[in-house]
């Protein structure tokens, strides 16, 4: 096939870029992931079976998936607000805010971790305020959600922003002029075209949050069955020199994340198809 391509395609460099790319992907991504897939079965499946009966693992998966979903969900309206302001508002300091939104993506997770743990801690700037209201965030699952919210926010904004930029503002004004209430206008005119990018942003944030480690462990409290995330349980198993157990959890985490993402992708397709159908009707 390669030769066929070469004859028809005038451009040189095909074989060298194929060789280079395959070696690069092979050594850095494919080889280690192969080890991940094969290792749990190496000692005859018993390790995998044991992992599948581990209630602590299910609790950790529930914490990871639950907190990630909640955080990404809270990020949806926040991200929509920021994207809307960036595109539509007369916003002084727009360039600075635009740059700041990517900060959670560039800030090292350990920095995020110790900072949020201090900020939401019992004597922290936000934590002290909440403590007076009787709310504890740090060292509870709420702390995990707070950290994941920070990490997931840019994904929503960056997914919605380009779509919003492509929508004419006249559309919204027409809705209002035709007598829709602001709420009706939002539900019937503004929201529908933004739904697909919102779902896309949600799924990206969700995916990132499921595997998140550094920004969470400082604020989480890390109690088994309560505030222990799945990536941390992998580290715990490694520290017990239980490579098989750690790999089994890793594989289950990766597979359930992939299943979740496939589900969200299907949902996304349904949302966009529903829109097309409604638009055609």
């Amino acid at each position, binding site marked *: 096939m390669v030769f066929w391509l070469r004859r028809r395609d005038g451009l040189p460099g095909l074989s060298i870029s194929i060789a280079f790319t395959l070696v690069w992907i092979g050594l850095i991504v494919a080889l280690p992931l192969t080890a991940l897939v094969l290792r749990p079965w190496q000692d005859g499946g018993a390790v995998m079976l044991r992992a599948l009966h581990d209630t602590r693992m299910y609790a950790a998966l529930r914490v990871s998936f639950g907190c990630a979903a909640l955080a990404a969900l809270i990020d949806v309206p926040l991200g929509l607000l920021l994207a809307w302001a960036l595109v539509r508002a007369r916003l002084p300091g727009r360039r600075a805010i635009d740059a700041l939104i990517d900060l959670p993506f560039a800030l090292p997770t350990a920095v995020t971790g110790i900072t949020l743990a201090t900020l939401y801690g019992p004597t922290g700037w936000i934590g002290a305020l909440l403590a007076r209201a009787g709310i504890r965030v740090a060292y509870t699952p709420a702390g995990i959600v707070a950290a994941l919210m920070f990490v997931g926010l840019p994904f929503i904004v960056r997914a919605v922003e380009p779509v919003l930029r492509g929508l004419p503002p006249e559309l919204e004004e027409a809705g209002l002029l035709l007598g829709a209430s602001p709420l009706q206008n939002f539900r019937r005119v503004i929201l529908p075209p933004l739904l697909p990018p919102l779902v896309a942003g949600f799924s990206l944030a969700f995916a990132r949050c499921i595997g998140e480690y*550094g920004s969470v462990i400082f604020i989480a409290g890390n109690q088994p069955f309560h505030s222990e995330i799945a990536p941390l349980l992998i580290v715990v198993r490694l520290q017990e020199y239980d490579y098989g157990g750690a790999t089994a959890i890793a594989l289950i985490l990766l597979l359930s994340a992939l299943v979740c993402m496939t589900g969200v992708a299907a949902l996304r397709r349904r949302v966009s198809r529903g829109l097309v159908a409604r638009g055609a009707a």
Partner: protein
Amino acid sequence: MGGPSRRGNAVLVAATYLTVLAVLVLPVLLVMVEALRTGIMAAWRSLLDPDALSAIRLTLVVTLVATLVNTAGGIMAAWLVTKYRFRGRGALVALIELPISVSPVIAGLVWLLLFGRQGWWGDWLDRHNIQIAFATPGILLATLFVTFPYVARTLMPFMEQQGREAEEAAFLLGAGFWRTLWRVTLPDARWALLSGILLTTARGIGEFGAVSVVSGHIPGLTETMPLHIETLYNGYQTVAAFTMAALLALIAMATVLLRSFLEHDFRKASS
């Protein structure tokens, strides 16, 4: 263009400032305040501690090598994927982007499965006295995995848009592959390339989870800057921990600002 009413705009701007302040600005402010709590000299001295200096050195070396490898690989992969059409192209792109959705902890674990004591090649390495896991090579491999996709990912949409007419013309005029890549494709894509390199560097410097799994956590030897922050923080050396964190936060902010300027430039250039 009408835009929102004056009152609506004021409410929107206020809500935006409040969100940005509470969610994004407050954490950065806290890092700086905690770092300077006992004065700038104390913060400076904490950076000159031998373990801190060694962590900075290790981080820079590992990030430099990882960025070089993944920039070279990313350029070649982007060329392959955008200049030719072939079966399995989509799968290749998916494989390149896969590391983004892998938990950092797993990105570290996979290398232990190959090179750790209980790993596939652990015995062999042990017998030949080669240390990969819990040493610098392991840290480098973990960083390579985590920073893998970013150059390729930033280049691909740009080079796709570029098409291949310029390259074909260069080839007809007698330029070979390397010359075409170096003189035609990359100069045109330089902003996208730079943006991708910046992102790779930032992720490399800041990687925590993956590196944490394959590092032996030996201060002064196998600790990178983020790992050293953890050690300091857990040892209640708050000022030193936040000083190192402030350094990383400044690097992150510089990265984000530079990238925003670059994107602004190539959005303007392409429109």
